[in-house]
């Protein structure tokens, strides 16, 4: 399997379930998943909870390419003076982590 379409045609299309998505939807879900994973590696999984709660999922998923989100993750991992508001995000994530740790 060389690409996502190969995975779709060899694995997903052969599933017995009738509610399998179209190939285009499958590729889109993968793209969104890569972007969310990129964010989660910078701000832990609690950042995804914040995105879901603030109803920013669609905006974040449609952010152009993965470059913007890669920069966001980099800023959250190692905040510098260029972005003043990144400590707020980190504080909220750590607050969630302290109050409800996911194991």
């Amino acid at each position, binding site marked *: *399997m*060389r*690409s*996502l379409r*190969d*995975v779709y045609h060899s*694995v*997903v299309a052969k*599933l*017995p*379930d009738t*509610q*399998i*998505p179209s190939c285009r939807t*499958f590729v889109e*879900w*993968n*793209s*969104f*998943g*890569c972007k*969310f*994973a990129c964010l*989660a590696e910078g701000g832990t*999984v609690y*950042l*995804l*909870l*914040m*995105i*879901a*709660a*603030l*109803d*920013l*999922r669609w*905006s*974040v998923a*449609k*952010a*152009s390419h993965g470059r*913007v*989100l890669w*920069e*966001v993750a980099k*800023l*959250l991992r190692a905040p510098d003076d260029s*972005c003043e*508001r*990144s400590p*707020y*995000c980190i*504080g*909220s994530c750590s*607050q*969630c982590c302290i*109050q*409800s740790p*996911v194991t």
Partner: protein
Amino acid sequence: MQTHINPSDEESYAQVTGKNLRYHPYREGEGQNDHHQGKRNCKRNGRVKAGAAVANWGIGEKMAKTSNMSCEAVISALAVAHPLRCDLDTWIEALQDLRADSEYGSFLVDDSMATVLQRCQGSTNSFLKGEFISMLSRVQLAIKCQRQVLSLLQVLLVYLIFLSL
């Protein structure tokens, strides 16, 4: 070369299609003699379209827009969730409900492709839980697919190393 549309053409187009015309990026009077002089005002090296082709353009009712969110805009949007200002407790309660839910346990146990695809579609009643499960499932799907693609690449790499020996 015609660079602009006559007002009569615009009215007839609007009557027939019910849409307004979309103009090409030249002001009136420009582009008529520029081609012969080798001078173009269009920064993207564009050429003046013929009047007949321009007349086919119209503005749609629902225009698609691409996102231009920058890095700081994303962080500013997320920074709204300040621990002292925002209802962080509600989210933590939702997360604790999710942990107590039986569906959350299936993340660790059942990670087959059919189950992951079903969760990606999002069917939970609660808005927050549904969104969160959907996002996590998409991450799970992306990892599963990348692993399958990568595994074949590893086999190819081993095969190439074997051939080179």
